[in-house]
């Protein structure tokens, strides 16, 4: 099943996060995959050598930009310098889209450099939707927001996380990056059903899927991106593509980064799941 998103953004197929330990491997081997996701912040201040590197890869691969510093949930004004640099990088790289997270990273001029949870209330919805629209105006392209992983939730929330995401996407007319590992982690941590979380997210808003590994701490799970995708997340991925259709999918691995071969093999698993889904449908 192929579900067209409302933004007519392409299905890029299967991609990987571009991480520094693999730069040489990638330039040398030019691996067979469709696209790379960069962490936007790694290139906002980068010198010309990095831009040359991106330009070379851009000839063979599509790109998407994924940020961690937009702080869309913050009550501080949007950072103009950050947005200006983000726009300049997007204009240079021409990514298929630009994404960040539903979270805040700091308030009152401080920055924790973490993706912190926000209360899911009507007040938050109005506030964040207005900021998303502001960002989209600056970037001149739809913003894609990722569901966060979280370990605590605000008692005052009046919407569930997937309800909030769905409402935000509608209100701000933005797209969504569905991190299936984050769904699994947050659903476990907050005692909700992961599949009903997926069911609540509107398919026509999803333009990308993230897969990653996490750490099991018994009474809670931590989104660590430091290991292989566990079976339970693969199962949720299978459910997601069955329910929502195949969209651009990538594997994130940011700590204890393995060899490129190991990472590439992990991506092949995602392909296998998707192909199995196509065969089942046929």
């Amino acid at each position, binding site marked *: 099943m192929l579900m067209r998103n409302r933004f007519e953004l392409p299905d890029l197929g299967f991609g990987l996060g571009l991480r520094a330990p693999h730069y040489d491997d990638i330039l040398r081997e030019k691996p067979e995959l469709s696209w790379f996701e960069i962490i936007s*912040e790694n290139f*906002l*201040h*980068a*010198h*010309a*050598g990095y831009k040359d590197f991106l330009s070379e890869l851009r000839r063979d691969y599509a790109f998407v930009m994924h940020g961690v*510093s937009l*702080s869309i*949930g*913050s*009550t501080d004004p949007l*950072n103009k*310098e*950050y947005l200006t640099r983000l726009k300049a990088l997007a204009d240079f790289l021409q990514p298929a889209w630009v994404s960040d997270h539903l979270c*805040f*990273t*700091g*308030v*009152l*001029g*401080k*920055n*924790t*450099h*973490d993706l*912190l*949870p*926000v*209360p899911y*209330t009507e*007040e*938050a919805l109005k*506030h964040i939707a207005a900021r998303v629209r502001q960002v989209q105006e600056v970037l001149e392209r739809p913003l894609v927001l990722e569901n966060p992983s979280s*370990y*605590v*939730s*605000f*008692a*005052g929330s009046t919407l569930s996380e997937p309800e909030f995401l769905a409402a935000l996407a509608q209100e701000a007319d933005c797209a969504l990056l569905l991190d299936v590992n984050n769904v699994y982690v947050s659903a476990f*941590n*907050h*005692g909700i059903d992961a599949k009903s979380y997926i069911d609540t997210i509107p398919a026509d808003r999803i333009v990308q899927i993230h897969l990653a590994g996490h750490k099991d*701490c*018994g*009474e*809670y799970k*931590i989104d660590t991106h430091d290991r292989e995708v566990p079976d339970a997340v693969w199962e949720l991925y299978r459910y997601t593509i069955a329910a929502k259709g195949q969209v651009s999918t990538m594997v994130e691995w940011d700590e204890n980064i393995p060899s490129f071969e190991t990472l590439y093999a992990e991506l092949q698993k995602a392909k296998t799941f998707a192909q199995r889904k196509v065969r089942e449908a046929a």
Partner: protein
Amino acid sequence: MSYAQALHNFQQAIFSRQTEEIVSLLDARPALDARMDVYIEGYRLRLAQAIASDYPTLEHYLGAERMGALAMAYIESTPPVSYTLDAYPIPFAGFVGQREEAFAASLATLESAIAEVFWMEESEAFQPPANFASEHMLVLRLHLRAAAHIMELDRAAEEYMRQFRAGEAPQRAVADIGHMLVLRHKNEVRRHVLNHTEYALLSRIIGGEPVGAAVGAIAEESPEACAVLARELQNWFARWISEGFFRR
């Protein structure tokens, strides 16, 4: 409680490690303190890793325990204010300078400059045309490249770093205060030791004096300086140009 207040309380719990206020706003879940610790400790770990990444030579010199304590003291006193994590470790050198002996401070200053120059803005190197006459050079005003730091530094720190980076067991030499230029050229951060007269001349030039006037002023300082200029000036300029000291 307002949305803004909820966010502020959450952030404050991370900075202060005091969770009572924020816990009252959260859903009751098993191991709530441990869950808050994911944020509280994760914040500190992330910043400590950023500092360690920029100051490997200092960490080798101080040892992991002393370096860890110093980094944690910095983190507790200095919440990040920039959207880029790369900016956070840069002022750590100043913090080290207030708390550690001079040699450690010199190492920190050098590593801070290297980290900062790596991320500084791009600027194109000045290249004189092939037929550029020396009289034209004398009236030129030259400006330092954007990604550069010129500084006073203990050369023993530079040598210690060189040995450490070369995989040797670094030895601390006797202090030898001099000057250094840390500069990014052709996408690499390079370190240039400057002797006294070279530094004095370069300072005048990048301070805005025309090259000829700067050379004249240094030559008048002392017969020794004049002799050094006569011997080295051409070599310096050749190196300054080939190593991209100046911007267009």
